């Protein structure tokens, strides 16, 4: 067994990989995280506000999206909306898929706001909109930031699923290079290193953020 590593190949493929990383992987991660963060909050607020039967339907929809593979969801959206290009399709599916996870995080955050806060807003006859925006959300959000960060990282590590709809993201860029040159070793190893180099420091940072936010209560 020989580990045949060629530095010239490695330097050759690195710019290609970094370009794919910046143009596709990072774009999908950032935009989808933003969509998921907003949509998740909307779902969590809706589930508290709508009547029970509607909530049951909503819960089923959320569970269904969460318990089925993102790969099949990507295929479904990609072949149904043929006018969408692959990256838009990817951003939408990742945004919706992860919003179902983030909704759970927000729900826990909202549930953790003491009942006295709700009662106080009622006592002050605060309107619904202001109750959410000025009292509940600011308190609920604080505890949810680290968990949202962790989901952003796990979304980042799920972006290679996009190869199923033919998007040339980080892994596919490595596979294309490997297919053209028969040098998979350098390309795919570097892909792994880029993933590790991007996700590990971020997760350490979120770990520290978690400690800080927890202590200041």
């Amino acid at each position: 067994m020989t580990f045949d590593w060629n530095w010239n190949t490695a330097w050759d493929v690195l710019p290609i990989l970094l370009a794919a990383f910046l143009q596709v992987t990072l774009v999908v991660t950032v935009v989808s995280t933003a969509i998921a963060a907003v949509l998740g909050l909307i779902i969590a607020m809706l589930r508290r506000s709508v009547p029970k039967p509607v909530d049951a339907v909503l819960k089923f929809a959320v569970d269904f999206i969460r318990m089925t593979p993102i790969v099949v969801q990507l295929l479904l959206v990609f072949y149904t909306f043929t006018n969408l290009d692959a990256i838009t399709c990817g951003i939408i599916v990742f945004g919706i898929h992860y919003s179902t996870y983030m909704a759970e995080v927000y729900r826990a955050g909202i549930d953790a706001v003491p009942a006295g806060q709700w009662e106080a807003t009622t006592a002050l006859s605060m309107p619904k909109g202001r109750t959410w925006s000025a009292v509940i959300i600011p308190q609920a959000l604080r505890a949810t930031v680290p968990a949202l960060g962790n989901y952003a990282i796990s979304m980042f590590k799920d972006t290679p699923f996009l190869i199923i709809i033919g998007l040339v993201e980080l892994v596919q860029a490595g596979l294309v290079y490997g297919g053209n040159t028969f040098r998979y070793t350098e390309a795919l190893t570097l892909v792994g290193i880029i993933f590790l180099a991007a996700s590990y420091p971020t997760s350490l940072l979120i770990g520290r953020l978690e400690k800080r936010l927890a202590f200041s209560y």
Partner: protein
Amino acid sequence: MTENFDELAAAWPRILDGIWITLGLTGGGAALAMIVAVTLGLMARQPNVLVRGTARTIIEFFRGTSLVVQIMWLFYVLPLLGVDLDAMVVGILALGLNYGAYSAEVVRGSINSVQSGQWEASTALSMSSFHRMRRIIFPQAWALMIPSLTNLLIHLLKGSAIVSFIAIQDLTFHVDQLRLDTSTWFAYGLVGLGIYFIIAYILTLVMNTLEVRAKHRLGRGESLREMLSLKPPRTTAGTGEPA
């Protein structure tokens, strides 16, 4: 509409094969993940820096590099190094190692959350450390870790859908084939997502059953038989016992 179902009926034997492949990947991956998780989880608690460091490095490595990268690396790079594995083995290996690393953190965390009095009592009874782990600590940690492991198991099932990319004819592959003859929403939406959802739901029920059993064995909560029986539940009111 009826054509869709006719096509589904014609393709059903192949889809059934795909379901078995997906279940094989999930089952094999989960079994390997459990072995990896317990090994690494226990190693990550050792006082020895070398042992702990090794476990932490492996855990962070497999958590940090994406599942798909690991599948592709095992599939494309390993043969170049002279190790030729069957695609199915690659799939199970990648799923098992990746989710094993995630589960190792769950195992470690759950063992750490077992009350310190349990550790002290078993030490006071001069149990060997193996005996203590097997009879006292692990059964309690097991009940704690099942909900998290359920989530990871569903993730593993969903992650297995990418293996059609390394030429394994799993459920996603056959659903993809079905799409050529039926409407898109029918193949992916109803058949594909529907079957995955049913599998995930059954897996969740099985794991919940395991949790009930694990808790009952610790003397917390009813046994399965009591839960499923039509007789009214045992009441502990008035006996001074916590319900």
